[in-house]
């Protein structure tokens, strides 16, 4: 019975089960968490193998056929996103294992530290189950519920650090995600009222231009843009990602933001591809350019390391939105493969960066960039991980970011719209700016660095390095994941839809 459907069920049921059991048996939380992480990695491996063999699959939950029941749709893009979540999630879980095993000095923080350790694992596993459910499901309302699980778990994790700034950021994050979910729900309601169907694949065949369709689609997109923190709506992201605990920031920036972009990619690339005018794609691309410029500018000005990384997330998301008009421009697979590659490499690189920053913060006691000089003497591995992740974020060959941007550059020049390519290049230069700003502090040799006697467990440093190396190697071994994408089906071109029945 070890076919793709079985592994898909394990991907949703296992994290939920371990989340509940780690809540009930608080003492064993730090055992259930990593166990669930390894099981998840195993399930994704099984899913990839059986998917490569048997091709795309639709699984009817509860045995009810399409118009009524909810379906899992397992295709190339879904497997890649699950693999990204599994790999990054495994690295973050190992990092968190080390992070929470640290004994914090004073007794006063003992119970606070104890609470964080107890509640981190159930919240993180519920978030993970929400992400897996979101990538697998092909039903718009079911995706609304998984978005809620992911959003609520992310807010609770942000507020877990207990500091006033983190709680204020969590409250603002919650209000924004409340507004986003409400507009997404209204969009789903209007589409259901118009077409009477909730499934994405079926909807893409029924869709025809009409006033209610435009309103519904506009609301869906507005809700998802709020949750992806695209440029004008990004105000809630930096404080939330910077003030959270180190493993939580890695999860938020690496994985949670990707879920809503994945949905936008599905809706704009596949479901409503025929109906949407090119001008809409150009608008999103323009907002993406704004995000790249504004994010990079802010990152250059930041004094705190984690704020710099958070603003770099805003900038990197801009690249993904620049890829949308290019997908519309080029019928071939190049732009689609590029955007998937950018998503994968950003997830690994950004998580590695936040993990390294977390180790640096624990060792230095602060994260002011100006005073970090000479830390490489004390934390060589984490500094190397940070710089390596920064380099792959910049899009330096052979990293995944480089291959993605190179493909996009090719598409934009071939299609004659050179301004997207030009924006990619300036964005990369700006990214180089803020990465070198930090790297120069980390790598330069300076007077002995005053640091706490805090011994950083090696698992924390090496999980960050491995993830950074993976982000770097993604460019070289880009072949296998991308042919997975093709093997499944031409995800976004109309030809692919017939396969989905």
């Amino acid at each position, binding site marked *: 019975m070890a076919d793709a459907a079985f592994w898909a069920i394990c991907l949703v049921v296992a994290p939920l089960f371990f989340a509940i059991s780690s*809540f009930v048996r608080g003492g064993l939380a730090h055992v259930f968490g990593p166990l669930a992480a390894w099981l998840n990695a195993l399930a994704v491996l099984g899913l990839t193998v059986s998917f490569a063999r048997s091709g795309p699959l639709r699984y009817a939950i509860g045995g009810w056929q399409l118009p009524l029941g909810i379906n899992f749709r397992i295709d190339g893009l879904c497997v890649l996103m699950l693999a990204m979540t599994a790999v990054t999630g495994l690295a973050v879980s190992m990092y968190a294992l080390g992070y929470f095993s640290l004994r914090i000095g004073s007794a006063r923080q003992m119970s606070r530290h104890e609470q964080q350790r107890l*509640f981190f694992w159930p919240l993180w596993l519920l978030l993970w189950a929400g992400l897996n459910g979101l990538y697998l499901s092909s039903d718009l309302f079911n995706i609304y519920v998984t978005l809620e699980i992911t959003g609520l*778990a992310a807010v609770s994790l942000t507020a877990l650090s207990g500091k006033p700034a983190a709680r204020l950021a969590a409250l603002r994050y919650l209000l924004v995600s409340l507004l986003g979910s409400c507009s997404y729900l209204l969009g789903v309601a209007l589409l259901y009222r118009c077409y009477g169907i909730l499934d994405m694949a079926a909807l893409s065949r029924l869709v025809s231009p009409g006033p209610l369709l435009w309103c519904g689609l506009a609301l869906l997109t507005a809700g998802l843009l709020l949750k992806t923190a695209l440029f004008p709506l990004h105000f809630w992201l930096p404080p939330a990602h910077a003030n959270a605990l180190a493993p939580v920031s890695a999860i938020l920036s690496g994985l949670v933001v990707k879920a809503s972009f994945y949905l936008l990619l599905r809706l704009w690339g596949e479901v409503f591809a025929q109906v949407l005018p090119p001008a809409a794609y150009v608008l999103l691309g323009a907002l993406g350019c704004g995000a790249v410029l504004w994010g990079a500018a802010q990152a250059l000005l930041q004094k705190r390391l984690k704020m710099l990384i958070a603003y770099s997330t805003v900038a990197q998301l801009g690249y993904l939105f620049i890829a949308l008009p290019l997908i519309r421009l080029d019928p071939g697979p190049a732009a689609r493969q590029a955007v998937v590659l950018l998503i994968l490499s950003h997830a690994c690189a950004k998580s590695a960066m936040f993990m390294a920053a977390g180790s640096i913060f624990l060792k230095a006691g602060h994260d002011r960039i100006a005073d970090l000089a000479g830390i490489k003497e004390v934390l060589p591995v984490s500094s190397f991980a940070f710089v390596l992740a920064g380099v792959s974020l910049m899009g330096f060959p052979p990293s995944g970011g480089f291959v993605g941007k190179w493909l996009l550059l090719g598409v934009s020049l071939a299609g004659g719209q050179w301004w997207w390519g030009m924006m990619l290049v300036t964005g990369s230069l700006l990214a180089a700016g803020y990465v070198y700003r930090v790297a120069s502090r980390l790598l330069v040799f300076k007077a002995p660095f005053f640091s706490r006697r805090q011994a950083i467990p090696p698992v924390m440093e090496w999980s960050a390095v491995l993830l950074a190396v993976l982000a770097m190697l993604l460019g070289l071994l880009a072949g296998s994941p991308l042919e997975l994408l093709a093997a499944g089906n031409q995800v976004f071109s109309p030809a692919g839809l017939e396969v989905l029945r």
Partner: protein
Amino acid sequence: MMDAMGIFDMVLALALPWLGWRLLASPDLFRAMVLFISLGLLMALTWVRLQAPDVALAEAAIGAGLTGALFLSALRRLERLSEAERRLAFAGKREEEDEIPPERHRRAKPVAYGLALLLLAVFVLLLAWSLAQTPAGGGLGPAVGEQLGQSGVRSEVTAVLLNFRGYDTLLEVMVLFLAALGVWSLTRVRLPLQDEEPGPVLATLVRLLAPLMIMVAGYLVWIGGSRAGGAFQGGAVLAAAGVLLLLANVTVVRQIPAALLRWGLALGPLLFLLTAVVCVAAGGNLLEYPPQRAGAWILLIESASAVSIGVTLAALYAGGRPPEPPAQDRGGEQGPGRDADADAGGRQ
């Protein structure tokens, strides 16, 4: 011309936005919350007029009962803080504040606000026009009607919730569990000091109403199969009983051991998950009940979920995790009085 029920609909449809507007515009927060509860009850009447009895029950129990009680307890906590704040008169007892970015007060420029209002108005008009344009297309009603036979229950909404789209409800119960988990991770519950016994009238009222509420909750879960009712509505009424007990500060509620509470929260989600997995083990798809005994499975899931929903919503009203017994809290840091969690630095 318009018969009496047509006027009834018109009055109701006009009363809702009017009440919503006055609610947000009212200067006093307590009155805003009373109006919010009245709006919830009027909304329940609207659901009755729109032939949605299940939603009317849920709106009355959760929308008006639970959410209103949540708001009132939050307002009470905030006011108690402002009083305590005045007593402290900023004596500087606060630990050195974590460096919070100074909030640039974006003066609400009238131009930007006017523009946003205009944009909102245009979009609402566009939406209104397009709603009027498109006839309400036939939804999945007929499809549900055909398959109702094999769903094991007679009420359509319960069939859709528990069988056709059972996966949604599984994730739904997880959302509630997650909310309780989030609230527990944020703070510890602050039980009000018992400075005076609740009056005799209140005590008898609670002694009368609480058991009746629990009975009605059981009735709603049982009737859920054939008529309006079910796990959510039953759970909500159960939670209303819990809220009543918490409000009247009944001492038995405080002695509930934390372990029992944890199992109460985890029972529904865990059982739902296990039945889903057992269906797979029995050879069907996820959540595919054996056809002939689907009704029994659904009732089992509903009753377990109702208990858990009741406990979860009451825990949400309590607003924090139960105080740990001193033995477990090795750190001995029993945050006296206000549980000032804020400890700057140390953990980022």
